[in-house]
């Protein structure tokens, strides 16, 4: 019975919310735009207490039973108590309790700005190093896709720094020729043939471009080429994923509001 009530609520509220997006009935529109979200905020607010209790319970248990790494829990508990004291008991400024959270002279504000925010910024800054290590792994030439990724990555990196604008058209052309031969290298049986072909192409192609007066083409300007990579292939790929996500969201929501997806309720 308890579970049936839960299903009924999910289906009822789900259809009500969906209808609210299409039917022009102010009380219903007001319910889905304001009331329902406020109800959610109120429930979340109460759940915050459960979170705090859970955190305290977990770490107190860890310390009391001296479970593995219990010493770290002492730091959590001490930090928790200190922030509670500065938030609810000790003010340290001339303003009243409550507004003191945003008052520069208060102890809470000092703790927040001098300890909490720098720690958050440190974690965020770590991203730079993680991006470097992840890129290194992704750019390793293992297959055709990884090679394409490497090439696009190099063009994007060069194209987005000032030096990219200084690269002349012939140098871009030579880079393309190198890349082309890197891809087709395995097709040559003899290294010498490949070397001579490459040198020949490197000399002949710039002359050909000059003869036809094609040196102003965007493909020979790395900043323009990287813009094209971002605007065309990258956008096409990401939009394909986004269409898939949108369809998946509709299908998942449909399964939930028709009561077919019951795993979340334990079925």
């Amino acid at each position, binding site marked *: 019975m308890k579970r049936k009530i839960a299903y009924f609520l999910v289906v009822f509220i789900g259809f009500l919310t969906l209808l609210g997006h299409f039917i022009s009935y102010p009380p219903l529109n007001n319910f889905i735009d304001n009331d329902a979200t406020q109800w*959610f905020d109120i429930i979340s607010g109460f759940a915050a207490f459960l979170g705090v209790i859970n955190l305290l319970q977990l770490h107190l*248990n860890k310390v009391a039973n001296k479970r593995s790494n219990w010493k770290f829990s002492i730091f959590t508990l001490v930090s928790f108590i200190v922030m509670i004291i500065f938030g609810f008991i000790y003010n340290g400024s001339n303003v009243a309790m409550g507004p003191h959270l945003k008052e520069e002279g208060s102890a809470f504000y000092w703790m927040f700005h001098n300890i909490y925010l720098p720690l958050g910024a440190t*974690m965020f800054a770590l991203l730079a190093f993680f991006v470097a290590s992840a890129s290194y792994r992704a750019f390793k030439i293992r297959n055709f896709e990884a090679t394409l990724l490497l090439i696009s990555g190099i063009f994007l990196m060069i194209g987005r720094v000032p030096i990219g604008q200084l690269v002349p058209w012939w140098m871009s052309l030579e880079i393309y020729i190198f890349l082309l031969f890197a891809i087709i290298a395995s097709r040559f049986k003899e290294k010498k043939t490949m070397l001579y072909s490459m040198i020949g192409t490197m000399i002949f192609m710039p002359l050909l471009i000059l003869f036809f007066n094609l040196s102003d083409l965007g493909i020979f300007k790395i900043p323009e080429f990287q813009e094209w990579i971002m605007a065309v292939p990258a956008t096409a790929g990401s939009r394909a*994923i986004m269409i898939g996500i949108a369809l998946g969201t509709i299908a*998942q929501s449909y399964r939930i509001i028709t009561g077919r997806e019951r795993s979340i309720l334990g079925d």
Partner: protein
Amino acid sequence: MMNKYIKFIFIPSLILLFYFFFPLQIFLIGNETTFVSILFICFAIEYFIDKARNGEQIYMRPIAAIKAMEEAVGRATEMGKPVLYVPGISSLDQIDTISGLIILGHVAGMTAEYEANLHVPVCVPIVMETAKETCKEAYLKKGRPDLYRDDMVHYVTDDQFAYAAGVNGIILREKPAAIFFQGKFYAESLLLAETGNSIGAIQIAGTGSSSQIPFFVTACDYTLIGEEFYAASAYLSGSPEMLGCIKGQDYIKVGCIILIITVFMCSVLNSYGYINFDISSLFRISVIK
């Protein structure tokens, strides 16, 4: 057969007639495209669910990440190490979080079956309560309520980077053999996935955040991309109804591809003056007021 015609042709047509020709102004103006799309998608899904329910064999293409889930839990059991499940940093108002929790139910079922240790650090208190219930029910369903511990799912913090630091600490101290990242992620995705990668855990990620997919693809062993993430729970449940739903979704995707090609061709012909109708004007996104 007659019932099918009534259900999948007559009823949607009736709804459309009602929507577009009802004399009183009860529908919001500007949402017509959205309404027609949702109606069409829902009935297409329903059609395939109906087909699956009637016993028609449905082929599902294998998804490596879903197949690897059980292997990852098995590996963790063999190594005697825990399984870490990260349900993202968003609240229950995001469909990604709900999908993540649904998959958690299946993973918890596997850990109950294999007697592996499950650890679920959570960022949002309301998600913690739901995750607790999901795990408890999964253990109960598998007949192993004795293995469920209340501290299996626990709250860490609401702050994005503090949560990332907390989970990274858990990863480095406990060295789980399998890590699942299933839910809504933002900038912390790479911090978490790279740390997991550094300890050599099998990592299976799934998210609807298109900007975080490249990071997961780079740092994780398997990634559920786009709609695969939402289909995972249906796939794992294995029920014909759910599989029919995925099949319907796939056919709609084929329909979208055909539509995109048609619109592209018509737009090209329109720009060269062969046809005097801008088809793309039909698909302009309307804003729900």
